[in-house]
């Protein structure tokens, strides 16, 4: 991920100004890993992660990004600040380590997202775990393996090149001597920093990586044993609830806490406008909260009706994105045979992770420990440190593998609330947001208004392309098609709702606009939409997924007809190449649409775990159905009007079409992340298929809010 895109992702985080960096104390981890073998990677290395780069003119400290430890029993532990949120990175990173270290997969323990135990990490977002953490861990594991082989060679007084490492052992094939890694590390204190470029096992030789291993500790997820953040319990733990304003930007006018104060089992905590309750049991805490009478003054605020006018008329010039230009659009448009000008919109949508935000906070003297669900444990640690005005080293954030996030759990509000209440209670306190709180007080995927102006020659050559995105973001804004004359720009605006990261960010909106528009141009030219794309496309990887999807789908074999439509779309973002073909059935009389079949082709370099990858791509397709057809946040006067699953519809079993995933394994290319970009192709493909079935072009997401086609 280029640094500018990373900073844009963080800019959507709303807490960028509060980011602080702390230098990890090297002595801490050397003490932690007292014996055995330790390999670390410095952030300054060529493949280091973003920690080593300049960011917003700050030179970040050179950091250790992860380390590999082999203890005196041969147990391998990997320490990384990345977190597991259901994307299966705990499994796939362990596969990469097992491969390079030549140990059985199950010999590896991954310690993730614990700010006291793992190195600093910016966070788990941007599809960066596989392309950045993957190679780093491989380098460390390879270095560790070399050290083990060298140590065995010294012990046997032989040449290390004559030795092999396999199955957690170093073997001398000639003398048939063998030592387990534990036997080599026992009583030793070996540490090394990765230097140069240690040899990595070619992907074509992978035996553990590249295979369909099941999720680490999978049985804990089918037995209920796995402890999510909201499941954490501490001795003497209390339950906390927080009083919520009646709307955004509300001012507290009056407060009556007398009823709650009369409840013997409950305690009310007041700190300015923050009002919370604590009780020994969750039920009493809920009753105490609902007994509080509060009056709020909520100012008049805009609603969905005025949303797009607002977005177009409230520029935020501070974050204005760079304009990408080439040639002259005006000149090319003047000479174009076919010209089109259209606009497209996307509504705010919610991440709606099934586990809402949750935190358990515990103070021990001046040290704060918080278990919470977040994609940025170090970011949350820094938020806590700043809020409570204590050094970050006195805050520990632990992130148990959580009930997902989809980009929605970057911030630390719930952790702060739990910590504030725990301070008042002088006991550990758990806070779990309700579904309504999660829908209201988290943040949303940005709404957006996108304008595209294009021109093409009669022979199907694209000659002019102008694309402006207002508010939703710059991800995936550039066109992969060959166009000599371009103007492409992102225009930030003052968002009426709190907005932030989301799976794929704005790539979904930008692909919806671009791939719908490409379809419109193809129809205006009377050319097959796939043929039109291929005519204007040289990128071999995008061509390959488009052709793979079309082939599996049988594109062109049947023609769309009234009521039955086929659509195609493709794109590339964050190193992932995607093409999606869909079939929709439309009942014109009842304006009902049904998605009946999806084929999605995917390529992101060498596949680390085909089963996990297939699961991610399928999940992205299903999640995309919601944003494409029916998910939209309804809001008015500072209130969310549909903050419940009964009103905010998510994709369910009945919405799921037949889904066929085609994976292309490019063992010759580095592995890219795959958690996000699989989401971008569906919405435009659906829009294009609906047009093919009905002749009506839908340019606003979602396209069927209440099950009926909108316009």
């Amino acid at each position, binding site marked *: 991920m280029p640094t500018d895109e990373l900073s844009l992702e963080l800019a959507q985080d709303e807490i960028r100004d509060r980011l602080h960096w702390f230098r990890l104390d090297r002595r801490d981890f050397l003490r932690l890993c007292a014996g055995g073998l330790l390999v670390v990677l410095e952030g300054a290395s060529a493949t280091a992660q973003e920690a080593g780069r300049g960011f917003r003119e700050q030179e970040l400290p050179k950091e250790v990004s992860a380390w590999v430890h082999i203890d005196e029993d041969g147990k391998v532990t990997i320490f990384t600040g990345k977190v597991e949120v259901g994307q299966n990175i705990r499994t796939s990173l362990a596969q990469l380590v097992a491969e390079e270290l030549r140990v059985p997969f199950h010999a590896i323990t991954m310690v993730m997202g614990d700010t006291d135990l793992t190195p600093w990490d910016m966070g788990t977002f941007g599809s960066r775990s596989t392309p950045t953490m993957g190679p780093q861990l491989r380098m460390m594991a390879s270095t560790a393996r070399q050290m083990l082989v060298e140590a065995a060679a010294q012990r046997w007084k032989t040449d290390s090149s004559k030795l092999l490492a396999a199955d957690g052992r170093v073997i001398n094939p000639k003398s048939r001597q063998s030592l387990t890694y534990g036997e080599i590390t026992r009583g030793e204190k070996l540490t090394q920093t990765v230097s140069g470029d240690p040899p990595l096992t070619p992907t074509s030789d992978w035996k553990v990586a590249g295979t369909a291993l099941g999720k680490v500790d999978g049985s804990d997820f*089918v*037995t209920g044993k796995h402890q999510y953040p909201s499941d954490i319990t501490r001795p003497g733990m209390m339950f906390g609830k927080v009083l919520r304003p009646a709307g955004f930007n509300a001012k507290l006018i009056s407060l009556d806490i007398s009823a709650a104060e009369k409840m013997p089992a409950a305690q009310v905590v007041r700190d300015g406008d923050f009002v919370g309750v604590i009780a020994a*049991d969750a039920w009493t805490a809920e009753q105490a909260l609902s007994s509080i009478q509060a009056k709020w003054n909520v100012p008049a605020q805009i609603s969905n009706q005025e949303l797009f006018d607002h977005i177009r008329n409230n520029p935020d010039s501070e974050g204005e994105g760079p304009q990408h230009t080439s040639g002259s659009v005006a000149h090319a448009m003047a000479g174009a045979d076919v010209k089109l000008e259209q606009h497209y919109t996307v509504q705010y949508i919610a991440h709606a992770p099934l586990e809402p935000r949750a935190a358990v906070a515990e103070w021990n003297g001046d040290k704060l420990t918080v278990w919470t669900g977040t994609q940025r444990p170090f970011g949350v640690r820094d938020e806590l440190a700043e809020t409570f005005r204590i050094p970050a080293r006195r805050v520990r954030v632990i992130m148990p593998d959580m009930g997902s996030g989809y980009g929605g759990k970057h911030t630390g509000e719930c952790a702060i609330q739990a910590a504030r209440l725990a301070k008042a209670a002088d006991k550990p306190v758990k806070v*779990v947001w309700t579904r309504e709180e999660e829908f209201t007080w988290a943040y949303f995927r940005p709404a957006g208004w996108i304008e595209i102006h294009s021109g093409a020659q009669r022979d199907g050559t694209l000659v002019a392309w102008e694309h402006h995105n207002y508010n939703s973001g710059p991800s995936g804004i550039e066109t992969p098609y060959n166009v000599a004359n371009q103007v492409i720009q992102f225009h930030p605006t003052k968002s009426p709702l709190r907005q932030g990261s989301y799976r794929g960010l704005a790539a979904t909106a930008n692909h919806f606009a671009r791939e719908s528009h490409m379809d419109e141009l193809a129809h205006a030219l009377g050319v097959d939409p796939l043929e039109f794309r291929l005519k204007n496309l040289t990128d071999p990887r995008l061509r390959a997924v488009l052709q793979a999807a079309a082939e599996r789908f049988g594109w062109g074999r049947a023609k769309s007809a009234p009521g039955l439509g086929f659509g195609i779309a493709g794109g590339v973002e964050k190193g992932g190449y995607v093409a999606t073909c869909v079939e929709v059935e439309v009942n014109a009389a009842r304006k009902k649409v049904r998605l009946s079949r999806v084929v999605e082709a995917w390529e992101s370099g060498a596949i680390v775990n085909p089963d996990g990858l297939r699961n991610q791509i399928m999940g992205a397709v299903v999640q995309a159905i919601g944003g494409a057809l029916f998910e939209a946040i309804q809001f008015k006067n500072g209130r969310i009007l549909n903050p419940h699953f009964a009103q905010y519809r998510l994709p369910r079993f009945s919405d799921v079409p037949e889904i066929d995933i085609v994976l292309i394994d490019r063992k010759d290319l580095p592995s890219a992340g795959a958690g996000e970009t699989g989401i971008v192709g569906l919405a435009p493909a659906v829009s294009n298929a609906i047009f093919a079935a009905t002749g009506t072009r839908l340019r606003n997401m979602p396209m069927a809010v209440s099950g009926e086609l909108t316009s």
Partner: protein
Amino acid sequence: MDDLLLNINGAALHTRTSGNETLLSVLRNQFHLTGTKYGCGEGQCGACTVLIDGVARRSCLTRVSSAAGARITTIEGLESNGVLSPVQQAFLDEEAFQCGYCTAGMILSVTALLREHPHPTDQQIIEYMDGNICRCGTYPRIVRAIKRASQGREKEGTDHANR
């Protein structure tokens, strides 16, 4: 406050609480049976599903007093002698989860479904399961797991490539 005797996973457990407290809250917060999840509190997502006398119920909408005297089964009570139930095993074999937060509720709903329809049709699966949300979108795999469990199939090797 009411004194209630609950039969949970075959054990008699005593609780003293308001009978209006939800079964979900009692399971999670009093008995630390945290496999049953909160997802919405309004019976819309199915994450809190338990079996009450063998029938799938939303524990977030069930008053604990109404469950007294009944047989309550949670995800923690499905294994027998350390062996996964066929539905649990099928979910594991099909890797029918991502974050896994919906999984307990899914497994209990499927357990009840297969009791009612040992060999459900696709339509029966959709109708029965439509109240359970998987935000990660693993529905196709869950359907496969349901079919695997209903057919009592053993694990078919490790080739997941054609899922």
